[in-house]
Every structure is written in structure tokens, then in C-alpha cells.
């Protein structure tokens, strides 16, 4: 089946065939943003001038080129970037007032690689402040709305990126995922989102939330585009000491290898009472599709998975409390006028940070403090090891673990905003994957009263190709990924 004509692959083919030009596509994208984003608020900033200039350059290069072999993988393709990745000279807010107006003097490594791949960065997308949230309602600049139902959240924290792709404003976007922030919005918005293995993609230039959990990953309308984008950004970076020296595969080519022999495991812990009936049903149906395709499906157990959420909500805030200490008004961003240093620090941070960020900083500071370090932070790290071991044991018997992305489809704006703990529960299936450092892919597998339902596939470290192959096989047997929200029809 040829790619839908709004995919990156289709665009490239059209550019090569001469049936479309980058400048047209960019113009289209920009007018779609104008038409749809007033309502959705997926973008925090759009760089029209630069996008048009770059598109014009690619027009030239495609005209001169004979075939696309000598043109980079994403040449002329528009993309959106979550606003917690540094773009040189372009405002980068991390969704926070405290960085309002700040223009980084450097590009994140992923941004450099995207430019090298020829992608045209249209703008920066909305997010929960400092990536802390599951709904994009924690953005200091107002929430993003779900393109499928504007009264609902797009998920978070990469809500802007997911909405931008779902609403057809861009074919590709980058998000970041610390506890589910790519997968959850991908699930809520009916698009494909991948959190790579920890260390697969460089974090240099990603505004840090939780250093041992953060990863940057692709969002797209189908699996093959997701594979294309992953290939463009993955790989070792000397500027990131935690990035892995493991060769990058040709993920798109890997899809052609088929998915024979991939064994699927379903954890019994993932089908409990907390999961919506519609979500449970959609997952069951998806597993039937896999079985019908010849994938062995079996039940597995991840006994420590329940402890993953509390462990995460100690580790992530602890690291965040340290990573966010630098926002003190001294060197960049907002600075409160004050009479002494202490007042400057406290006023700057009090006014600059939103309530969820403050909550997590306080939680994290407490978890690391003298007398509590062993009981909380250290203990949480021990639990983390147990969670990782649970997955290791499961992967002795299966190659892919299948779970829901979230217990429910997208909830209403404001529904959980006043109840942080209830909000945290949205991440119950995504968090264990970050704790174990594993790759996790979310893709659409059904609908509930017009709202997308996402399925999550989890793999062994650095086996993104296996996930993509399994997901691709599922996609070919279904049509969920071809549905578009009314706004994008």
C-alpha cells in the first residue's frame, strides 16, 4: 500500500517526481497552522521566514538533482519540534515563564542532525512545563487541545507535537519522553510515537527534566515515517556521555524484513480493574490481529510493575530538583528585581515556575535530603532494578511486550488538573518502560466514541527495529493509522 500522501515518504517521492515542490508544501503547512492552530494551540512559535527560505533552497536542489539518492533523507520535509529542545537563535521556553524570551546560542544535537537531513523546522510545539505532566495543561502558555475533540487533552507532555501531527499541520514531529510523554500523547491523538532505548538518541540540547530517564523520539502518522525520523536522529554523540556507541540500523529497510517469529507477551498486571473496558477490548482485538498474522501471543508477568509509579515519582523529581536549580535568574531567562541575592533567587523561582514544577522540585529535594536519601531515592533506584529485571525475565520468553498506552482514552481538559495523583496514574503503563530504559512504541489500535486508543509495544534494549517491524505488520492488517480527525480531513 503506498503511503498516505501526507507522509514524509510520500512528500519525498513527490518532490523527486516533480509533482510537488517543497515551497508549496511549506506554504500549505503554514496555512494549515493558521487555519487550525488558533483553536488547537499546538505551536508556541512558528518561524515562517526561515521555513520559506529553506524551502526555496530545496526547490532548487531537487530541480538540479537527478533522483533523490544524493539528497538527504528528509530533504524539504516539514517538521515540528517540542519546545524543550534548543534551537539556536529561536526562542526555547520549555513551556515555562522562567525561560520566556530566551534564545539558545546553540542547537541541540537532534536539531543539527535534522538540518543535516534536510528537514525544514516549521516551529516549536507546546508542552507541559519542563515536560512535567501528562496533559499539556501545565504549560505556562495555555493548554493544547486534542484535534479529535477540542474539549479534551492531547496528552502530555509532548501534546503540542502529537496534536500538530494528528491535525495534519506537519507530517513529523519530535517529542521527549521521561515517563510516557511521547507515547501518551501519541495514544491520545491517534498517531505513532516512539520512545527509543535510553542512550539511543542524544540528549545534548534537550532541556533536562530527569537525566536518567529522558529520551527524544519521533512522532509520525505511520510506522514507516516514524522509522525514517528515528534513523535521522539516532546515534552516538560525543557531547552526551550517556549516548550509546551502538550502530544505527536502517530502520526503514528493516521493515521490509517482515516480522516472522516475533513473540508477543501480554502482562497480566496490565489488564486489571483500572483499565477502561474500551481500552481493554481494543487491546484484545489487536492481539487477535497479531495472532491471526501468526505471531505467538502469551501471557507473561511483571510483578514489580505496580511499584514502578511510586519509584518514578521519587527518582524523576529528585533529578529534576537538581536539574532545575540552574533557573535562578543569574545568567539567562527571567530575573526578579530584588534587594539581595536570596530574595532574587526566591522571587525569580516563585514567579517563574508553575505549581506542578514547584511540587516536583519540593518532592525531589525532600527525597534527596539528608536522612531521607536512603529511604527514598536509593530505595526507588533499587525498585528500578527490580522492574528492569522483570522485563529481562519476560524477554527470555517473548520479544515484544504489548500493553495499553494508558488506562483510558483522552480525558477532558480540567478533569484531572486539580488532582495531581490522579494525573500521575495516567502514566502507569508507560513509566515502567522508562525506568527499565527500554524502547516503547505507541500506535493507534482502535477508537472509543471517536477518541483514539493507543497500544504500546515494548522491546529489548536497542531493538527498535523489532518493535517497528511488529507494528508495521499490524498496520498493514488494519487501517487505524489512516483515520484523520475532522479538523484534518
Amino acid at each position, binding site marked *: 500500500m503506498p503511503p498516505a500522501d501526507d507522509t514524509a515518504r510520500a512528500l519525498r517521492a513527490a518532490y523527486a517526481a516533480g509533482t510537488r515542490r517543497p515551497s508549496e508544501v511549506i506554504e500549505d503547512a503554514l496555512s494549515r497552522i493558521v487555519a487550525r492552530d488558533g483553536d488547537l494551540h499546538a505551536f508556541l512559535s512558528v518561524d515562517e521566514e526561515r521555513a520559506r527560505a529553506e524551502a526555496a533552497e530545496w526547490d532548487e536542489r531537487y530541480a538540479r538533482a537527478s533522483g533523490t539518492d544524493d539528497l538527504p533523507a528528509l530533504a524539504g520535509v516539514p517538521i515540528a519540534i517540542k519546545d524543550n529542545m534548543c534551537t539556536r537563535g529561536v526562542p526555547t521556553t520549555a513551556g515555562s515563564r522562567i525561560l520566556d524570551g530566551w534564545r539558545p546560542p546553540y542547537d*541541540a544535537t537532534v536539531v543539527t542532525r535534522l538540518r543535516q537531513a534536510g528537514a525544514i523546522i516549521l516551529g516549536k510545539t507546546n508542552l507541559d512545563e519542563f515536560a512535567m505532566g501528562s496533559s499539556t495543561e501545565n504549560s505556562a502558555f495555555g493548554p493544547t487541545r486534542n484535534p479529535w475533540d477540542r474539549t479534551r487533552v492531547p496528552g502530555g507532555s509532548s501534546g503540542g507535537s502529537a496534536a500538530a501531527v494528528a491535525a495534519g499541520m506537519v507530517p513529523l514531529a519530535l517529542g521527549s519522553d521521561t515517563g510516557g510523554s511521547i507515547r501518551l500523547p501519541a495514544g491520545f491523538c491517534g498517531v505513532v510515537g516512539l520512545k527509543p532505548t535510553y542512550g539511543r538518541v542524544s540528549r545534548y540540547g534537550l532541556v533536562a527534566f530527569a537525566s536518567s530517564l529522558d529520551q527524544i523520539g519521533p512522532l509520525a502518522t505511520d510506522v514507516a515515517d516514524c522509522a525514517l525520523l528515528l534513523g535521522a536522529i539516532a546515534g552516538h554523540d560525543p557531547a552526551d556521555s550517556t549516548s550509546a556507541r551502538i550502530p544505527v540500523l536502517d530502520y526503514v529497510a528493516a521493515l521490509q524484513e517482515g516480522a516472522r517469529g516475533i513473540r508477543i507477551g501480554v502482562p497480566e498486571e496490565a489488564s486489571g480493574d483500572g483499565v477502561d473496558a474500551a481500552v481493554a477490548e481494543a487491546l484484545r482485538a489487536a492481539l487477535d490481529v497479531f495472532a491471526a498474522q501468526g505471531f505467538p501471543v502469551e501471557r507473561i508477568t511483571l510483578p514489580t510493575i505496580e511499584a514502578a509509579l511510586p519509584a518514578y515519582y521519587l527518582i524523576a523529581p529528585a533529578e529534576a530538583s537538581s536539574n532545575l536549580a540552574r533557573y535562578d535568574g543569574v545568567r539567562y531567562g527571567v530575573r526578579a528585581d530584588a534587594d539581595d541575592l536570596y530574595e532574587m533567587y526566591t522571587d525569580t523561582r516563585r514567579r517563574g515556575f508553575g505549581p506542578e514544577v514547584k511540587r516536583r522540585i519540593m518532592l525531589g529535594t525532600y527525597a534527596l535530603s539528608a536522612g531521607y536519601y536512603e529511604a527514598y531515592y536509593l530505595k526507588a533506584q533499587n525498585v528500578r532494578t527490580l522492574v528492569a529485571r522483570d522485563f529481562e525475565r519476560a524477554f527470555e520468553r517473548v520479544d515484544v511486550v504489548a500493553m495499553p498506552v494508558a488506562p483510558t482514552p483522552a480525558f477532558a481538559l480540567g478533569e484531572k488538573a486539580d488532582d495531581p495523583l490522579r494525573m500521575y496514574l495516567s502514566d502507569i503503563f508507560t513509566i515502567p518502560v522508562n525506568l527499565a530504559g527500554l524502547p516503547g512504541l505507541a500506535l493507534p489500535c482502535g477508537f472509543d466514541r471517536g477518541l483514539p486508543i493507543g497500544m504500546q509495544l515494548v522491546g529489548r534494549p536497542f531493538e527498535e527495529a523489532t518493535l517497528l517491524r511488529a507494528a508495521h505488520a499490524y498496520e498493514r492488517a488494519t487501517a487505524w493509522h489512516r483515520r484523520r480527525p475532522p479538523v484534518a480531513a
Partner: protein
Amino acid sequence: MKEAVITHETVIGLEIHVQLLTASKMFCGCATTFGTAPNTLICPTCLGLPGSLPVLNRRAVDLGLRTALALDCHVHPRSQFHRKNYFYPDLPKDYQISQYEYADHPPLATNGHLEITVDGQAARIGIRRVHLEEDTGRLVHPRDQARGSLIDYNRSGVPLMEIVTEPELRSPGEARECLTSLRRLLQFTGVSTGRMEEGTMRCDANISLRPPGGIAGTRTEVKNMNSIRSVERALAFEDARQRSVLGRGGTILQETRHWDERREVTFASRTKEEAQDYRYFPEPDLMPVTVDEAWLERMRAELPELPAARRHRFISTYELSPYDADLLTGAPETAAFFEAAVALFPHPKTVANWLSGEVAAYLNERGKELDEIALTPERFAGLLRLIDDGIISGRTAKEVLVEAIVTNRDPASIVDARGLRQISEDAALATVVDMVIAQQAGPAADVRAGKDRALGFLVGQVMRATNGRANPGAVNRLLRERLGR
């Protein structure tokens, strides 16, 4: 109230921070050059910009390992970096990447020792640990600035090594010896310039008094000393102060005291320093440092001979006195010069005497170091050989030495050019000897009569008559012959 005499023992421990001689910073590629315009040696990482990440400078670990080996420490095969969290404007990330120490998490190295000399005896000071960390920026408080200060981040991220001694120093003098010995070791091993005045070595001290046979008393921490001398004076003051307090029946408060160089006192810092909880946790952005045997071997091979070992060797191989050995191993250049000279002129005692005598005097008068003057071991050995061969006298040699340095010429050519050759041939000297004997009838008669002291006078007269160019040995012999002695 009469002050009792306190016979307590002094107990001192030192915490020393050393700037490492690497080309770039600890966690980024910025240069470590001293003295550049403010905020010109910076990048996203050492400025702590959002999204920046640290990358370990392996050369800094090399130098840390070199130091650990030189201090005979146990190097831990695996050590971790930690974050030390606190807020201060000179700390760009509001945490410092350092190495903490707790169960199962050792720093780079522990358990070594440093040799110092106490009253002419060698003593060993225990080294508790050696670890690596990054330096902070520099706050500048200009007097004309209405409010606030300026911050220069050039120094932010420069590699620092922290060395902590056991509290085994028994006097301010020993503390001075310890720092001197450490500085020498750091210079010898090329790890650091170790200059407190320039800030490449910094020292905080802990001091307490222990009653005879009792347990250690409360310690105070002393800070803000800008030189080794300063450390000694500050500790001497603090030692006396503590004795005075105890002598009047008071108690020592556990506090940090700052040394005031001008008033020569320590004073308790007026700002209330709350006990800081640094909330240490392992640095998630850096992998643990793994030191294998191969790396250690490479570092051992890189290690030059250490001052203590060299000192021992000079004493045994060259049969020098401990005093001379100390002097010659004081600086790496001096020791190297000495050995090169001895290789060409194998009379160690003579070489040592001339180096610690005439050459040292020349250097001290002009405030120069040996490697700053135009004197090579070859020329120096050449000069000494001229004396040994009897070509010039010792007295002449002193002048020739100075001229050789000043004019940057070979001593032999100076001797020839100025016709300074000693007169050693009997034929030439006999005439002058006879003339002097004739002129100094009285002293000559004394010598004949057995008063040898007059002989020295006559030799002196011959030297005067020949403008110092007569070979004193030959003159002495000729006089004796003539005078029947």
C-alpha cells in the same frame, strides 16, 4: 584570672584543592588559560545552559591518577561522580560535579601518604583521599558598583583535585612542610604549578587541641589563607587562641574562622553559616570512571622519579649530605641540571658545592630561577673541568661563571679571550716566588723558622703579584721548596 598553661597536643588536618595542568576544562573543551578577558573561555556546558551536558576530560583523570600513585594511594577501579547541590552565583548549574564518598562508593583514590621532613627526620603524613571535581566561576566585587557583583565564568569547570590529609600534622610548621612537600611533588609530576599566590593550590585547615592521653578536642576550620607562610601563621595564631581559651576555662566553638592577613588574626565569620545539606547523589549524566591495570601502568610509566626517591638516590649514589640533597631536589630543574653536570664532570660534591654556592647566590641576587639563565650543564661542567685541570683558579672561575651567564658564552672561550689562564709552569712562577721571598724577608724567615701561617701570607702575595692567576697549589709547593719546608 590567671591563664593555665595548656599542654595539649596540636592536631591539624589539611584540605587542599589543586588546579590541574590540563589544556581544557574538566567537562568541556574550553581552554584553561589564565588571565584572559572575562567570560571568553565559556561554552554551554561550563555556563550551565539549559540542555548542556558534561563530558569527562580523561587527561584530568590521568593527572589525578598520577597524583594518587605518587602519594602511594589505593586507586579504586570504579569511582563515580556526584552532584553537590547548593545555590551560589559562581556555580552555573547550582550544583558542582564532584566525588562524594560513602559505603560502596569510594572516590578516585584513598589511603596514601606524603613524606615530609620534621626536625631533619623523615615523617609520613597520611592522605585520606584524592578526588576530582570542577572549579567555580569567580565573583568580582567592584567597589564602584552600586549594588551587586560581577561574575567571570572563565574559571568555571576548570579541573580541580581535592587532597585531604589525615589529621596527623602536629604543628603549624609541619603543616607548612606538608604543603611545601606536596607542592614539590605536584610540580615534579607535572600535575599542577601548586602556587597558592596564584590560586592554583588552595588550602583550608582544621585544627584542634588534644589533651595528653585524651581524645581530640573540638576543631575549628580555618580559611582564606593565600600562601604557605600564611597557613603557618594562621595556624599558629589559632593554636595560641585555642590554648588561651582553654587556659581561661572556656570551650572551643566548632566554627569556621577566616584568616585576616593584614591584622594577622582569625575571626569567626559573622554571617550565620547554616549547616549545608548538599543532597549528594550520583551524577546521572556521567558514566562511572573505570580504571583498569593497563591505565594505571601507563600512568606509572609516565611518572617521573619522585622528590623523596630522588633525594634518597642523591644521598646514596652521589654520597651527598641530606642538606645538599634537599637543596638539589628542591626543584625539578635543579635536580636535572645537577645530574646532567655530574654525568659530564663526575665529582658530585664539587658540582653540588658550586650549584648551592656560587650559582645559587647569583640566582638569589637577581631573583631568577635556574632555567631562566643562560647556563647549560655542559658549560657548567666545562667550567669545573677548567678548575680541575688547573687551567684557572677557583677565584677566577667565579668571575668567569658570572661572565658566562651574562654574555651567554662558553667559559673556555672567555678564559682564552681574556687571557685568564692560570700560571702553573714552574719556570714562570719561580721568578715571582723568588721576588716575593726577597721582598718579604720577615715572613720568609718565619716560614723557614717553622711558622707555617706566614706561608699563607706569602702565597697571597704571589697571587696579588700575578693578579690572581697563579696556581696556588704550585705557588705553595715552590715556596716550600725555596724555604726548605
